[in-house]
């Protein structure tokens, strides 16, 4: 018997063994969403994720703004990884508007994208530390990512939500001494993250909490359509920067990190290895970048796409493959813009993995899916 007190808040008759718990939006271990778990003693029987607390209607708003004014609100699903969220949109808009991007702009975009990936993964690791109760793991990544945020601030002027990518290239050129400063910071950053092995990854408490919990087998990872580090931790070698290179990724040498176990420990380790790979990519890009040149192809003030067309572009972001599907009908605003976000795609693994887990393991499994709730709601 269920009586509704207010929308979404209902009193339910408690079963004899199974209790329904609300790991709600106000919880140190839940992020910006609610997970309704039904538990039998200490074991989770069923789980029902309830996203939508940050659903701001990005896709509807995109239909009222033209291709340039769409940029500020489209980058806010993940504010610190904003370049990667804008990337497929910008690539799609360039194909629809039919413009070419200069070479130097492509390298700058690659560098910004890799920096943002590291910034995102560091914050994700910091929150993972909080969820597990490891406050040093909050302080270290949250402090070390400030070095990279400084670099992004030099490049674009803002700490987060850079709005640096535009259809046609990048907004501004790099400041004068950027290459040396960037190389120095990235080298120091790489030295710092190697120290995380001692405090986090070789920590026996972490190993006992996350090893062999939430195991996602290879067939299931493919069948559920997961993406990004969740997929690579289950043994599937798939990275969009290698398989479908965009911009100048086909000229860079990228190694994909794959682990076979598929448990929460592997999923927490793969982004860390990815960050070290990003440092290599940044160094290569800084070397190969053309030393001068234009960085933006100017557009007319209200760019129109002339032909009705559709385009689907995807990009490897910090969480996985982010896609953007644009339907245009020849006007200045897109007719329909759909962001296919990796967090929403990985969400389906949550009810699948939590069945049979202990309640105490829920934060470590839930956040190890590389899930960013604001992005999943768009």
């Amino acid at each position: 018997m269920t009586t509704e007190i207010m929308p979404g808040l209902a009193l339910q008759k408690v079963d004899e063994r199974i209790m329904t718990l609300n790991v709600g939006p106000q919880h140190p271990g839940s992020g910006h969403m609610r997970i309704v778990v039904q538990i039998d003693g200490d074991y989770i029987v069923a789980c029902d994720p309830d996203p939508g607390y940050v659903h701001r209607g990005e896709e509807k708003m995109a239909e009222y703004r033209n291709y340039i004014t769409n940029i500020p609100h489209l980058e806010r699903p993940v504010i610190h990884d904003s370049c990667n969220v804008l990337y497929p949109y910008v690539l799609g808009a360039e194909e629809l508007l039919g413009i070419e991007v200069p070479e130097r702009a492509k390298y700058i975009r690659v560098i910004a994208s890799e920096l943002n990936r590291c910034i995102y993964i560091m914050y994700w690791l910091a929150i993972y530390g909080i969820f597990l109760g490891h406050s040093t793991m909050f302080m270290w990544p949250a402090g070390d990512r400030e070095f990279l945020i400084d670099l992004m601030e030099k490049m674009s002027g803002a700490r987060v939500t850079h709005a640096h990518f535009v259809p046609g290239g990048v907004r501004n050129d790099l400041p004068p001494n950027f290459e040396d400063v960037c190389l120095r910071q990235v080298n120091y950053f790489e030295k710092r993250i190697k120290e995380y092995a001692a405090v986090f990854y070789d920590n026996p408490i972490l190993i006992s909490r996350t090893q062999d919990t939430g195991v996602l087998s290879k067939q299931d990872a493919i069948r559920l359509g997961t993406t990004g580090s969740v997929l690579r931790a289950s043994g599937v070698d798939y990275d969009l920067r290698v398989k479908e290179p965009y911009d100048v990724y086909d000229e860079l040498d990228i190694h994909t990190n794959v682990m076979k176990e598929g448990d929460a420990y592997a999923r927490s380790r793969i982004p860390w290895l990815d960050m070290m790979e990003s440092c290599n990519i940044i160094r290569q890009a800084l070397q190969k970048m053309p030393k001068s040149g234009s960085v933006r192809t100017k557009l007319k003030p209200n760019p129109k796409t002339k032909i009705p067309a559709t385009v689907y572009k995807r990009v490897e972001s910090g969480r996985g493959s982010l896609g953007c599907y644009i339907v245009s009908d020849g006007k200045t605003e897109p007719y329909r813009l759909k962001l296919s976000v990796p967090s929403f795609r990985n969400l389906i693994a949550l009810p699948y993995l939590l069945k049979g887990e202990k309640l105490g393991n829920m934060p470590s499994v839930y956040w190890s899916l590389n899930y960013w709730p604001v992005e999943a709601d768009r």
Partner: protein
Amino acid sequence: MSTETQPPDVTPKEKPTPAKKPEEKPVDLPAFEKGLSDKITEKFGDKIEVAFVKEDRVRINVGRENVHEVAEFIRDELNFDHVESVSGVDFPKDKEIEVVYHIGSYTDSSLSRQILVLATRAQREDNPIPGKDATILPTLRNIFYSVEFHEREIFEMFGVFFEGHPDNRRLLLPEDWADLPPLRKDFDSRGR
């Protein structure tokens, strides 16, 4: 210092666009993608319509009666194994809502760049009662498990009911949403 390209609306004919491709069709169509679309055409004939064959993207338009069969063929014969995203597009002039599936493959390494775009159309009503009117499509959940949450989202955003889906419920909108499905074109979000 930036270079000025030719503004797009001065010489539209010289842009490399899909509209120009039919003239160069014998030479320019990418071979691998053409092979994929040929396999589907020879099995299903005129039940489907190949909308375009571009680099890495092949688009197939299907009617709602045949979409289930075509999806099964795509999964079994062509080795596509997961759906990346499902989007809905509202066409009030044609009185239809189009649902577009982007299907990819992780296992087959020759298909790792390809995305097959499968599009069907559902009938659109002017006063929708989501779940109880004629906007119905068969679900692809028993073929591709990964569409589960995506189809729920399309149900609440467009009002398209997926027949056979075990759980057609609200996902992102608030529980007390009593208005039109938001992503339809007659829902104007400004000033609401």
